[in-house]
């Protein structure tokens, strides 16, 4: 389906144009989400999209599903409530690097630990964009931000490693430059039964690019092209070759762990059968 048709089918009429800045990668990521949903043929009525607060979290308002634009950092608890209360819904969480890994960091590790069936699309633009360019836990060390005028001294999270360690059973990374791959990764994540997270590396030319003199939107896309490495190639690289780069693709998948809402149904059966 063409992007125009996808927009007509999955975006709410009258809600566009979006609020994102020219050259922002958020529109691309949001487009890949609907592409993935379309590929899987999901019914709109059966999909819930839950976001937090921040630039990326505005996506929920544009999408024609059951949507929640929740509070800062709280998308995952709300999504947990939706999914556990009605496991028939497909739950997709739209969040950003600040929303998910700083204020919502505790919720992220616990949702991963439970392995509850939902797909988190983490738009990583390396900055708090909505508030004008403060550093997040995923801002690369040494970057400048309005709250790091002398450059950040804090190491950043590799969120894929973090959620994998916490118990997520599907972990992937893509970029807005590799949009088709990103859409496929999201589709795989949604299909996966369990907690899945896809880090979508996305450019913020206004609040991150300018402060760090990376250039305009095209330069940020080129940066992604030059720094992202397909996993197969990454696996053959030496540590020196890997320096400054990052792998994209399905980084981890485990289909052996029990999914939370299924485990809960078994608990109900046990309780009603009189077994503690």
């Amino acid at each position: 389906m063409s992007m125009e048709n996808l927009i007509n089918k999955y975006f709410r009429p009258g809600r566009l144009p979006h609020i994102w800045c020219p050259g922002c990668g958020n529109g691309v990521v949001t487009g890949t989400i609907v592409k993935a949903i379309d590929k899987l043929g999901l019914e709109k009525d059966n999909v819930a999209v839950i976001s937090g607060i921040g630039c990326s979290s505005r996506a929920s308002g544009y999408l024609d599903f059951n949507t929640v634009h929740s509070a800062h950092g709280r998308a995952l608890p709300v999504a947990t409530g939706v999914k556990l209360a009605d496991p028939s819904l497909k739950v997709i969480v739209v969040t950003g690097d600040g929303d998910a890994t700083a204020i919502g960091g505790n919720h992220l590790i616990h949702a991963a630990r439970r392995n509850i069936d939902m797909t988190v699309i983490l738009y990583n633009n390396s900055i708090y964009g909505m508030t004008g360019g403060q550093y997040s836990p995923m801002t690369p060390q040494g970057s400048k931000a309005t709250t790091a005028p002398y450059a950040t001294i804090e190491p950043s999270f590799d969120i894929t490693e973090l959620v994998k360690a916490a118990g997520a059973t599907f972990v992937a990374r893509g970029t807005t430059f590799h949009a088709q791959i990103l859409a496929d990764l999201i589709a795989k994540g949604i299909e996966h039964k369990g907690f899945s997270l896809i880090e979508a590396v996305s450019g913020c030319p206004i609040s991150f690019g300018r402060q760090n003199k990376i250039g305009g939107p095209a330069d940020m896309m080129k940066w992604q092209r030059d720094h992202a490495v397909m996993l197969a190639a990454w696996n053959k690289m030496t540590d020196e070759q890997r320096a400054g780069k990052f792998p994209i693709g399905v980084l981890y998948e485990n289909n052996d762990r029990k999914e939370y809402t299924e485990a809960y149904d078994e608990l109900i059966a046990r309780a009603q059968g009189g077994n503690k």
Partner: protein
Amino acid sequence: MSRILLLQGNQAVVEGAIAAGVKFFGGYPITPSTEVAESLAERLPLVGGKFIQMEDEIASMGAIIGASLTGKKVMTATSGPGFSLKQELIGYACMAEVPMVIVNVQRVGPSTGQPTSPSQGDIMQARWGTHGDHWLIALTPASVPECFDLTLRAYALSEKYRVPVILLMDEVIGHMRERIELPDNYDEIPQAERKQPTCPPEEFKAYATDESLVPAMPAFGSGYRWHVTGLVHDETGFPKGTPAATKEAADRQYHKLYDNLEDIVQVENYRMEDAEYAVVAFGGGARTAYEAVDRARKEGLKVGLVRPITIWPFAEKQMKELADKVKGIMVHELNCGQYVLEVERAVAGKMPVTSYAKYDNEPATPAQLLAEIKKAMAL
């Protein structure tokens, strides 16, 4: 058929929740409310419901907001510090008009305070704890049977008005065990129902209302797709921040409750028919007051008790009427004097309002309260 039980107030809340049709609880352990969570962890799966212990109090609120959006009746329970943590999303629930019941079994604070000692120190937090102008309902039971009844009522109000309802308990009522008669099964108990849209999905506007000012609320997955947001929004549910839309949203949320105070506000009058002096007390404090009033009457003093059952919205009309009726009022509460501020405002200087504030970990004894009443009446 019914059964007679000795139950704690917290356990009666659990019975009320099951009877009300609660199917989802998200919580976090905190004394002295933990029995509510423990008991629902056991009970909910038996009725096909879900219990989840979340990673913190904030997440508990998030989870019940999400579950409520799927059409379920939901509950969380907490105490002082946890109630503070929940405030962020209580604001969200007010703004997005998400029905839920939040149980707060108050304890001595601030901070960790005295976790096992009674207090009514969260009266003002229950009203003003979250940020921004907002309106909600708080109910305060004064007995174990009333814990059951008010839990049912909390759901009736929460679903009818699409508003968070706080069941504002205290440790005295939460932990004491008392006789309660409960039906053997809850099938006959009327279930509060959420208003559903009558228009087809394509015409549905999520926050459009009729004269009730309460919008219909279809469940996620029902075919009505709508957007829930904490941003100021118009009747479509989508953000709209114009001055007119902002004022309109606030006005509607105010009027949907405050135009219905007759329905929402309940006050018990005990021995007030010929009373010349009134004690205002609620929750655990009212238990002292009933007996102090009885003792005063035995001594020939015309004292009565006015017990707000609905703490918020404030019983404005009842307190103003009281000011025209009696010669003096004493407000007795287990804090340094919170509810008394509202009573003084309503009475507006028409007569002396005396505060008997007790904030030393122990409820006042009837003898102590009676002595204070006598002192005040002599004024």
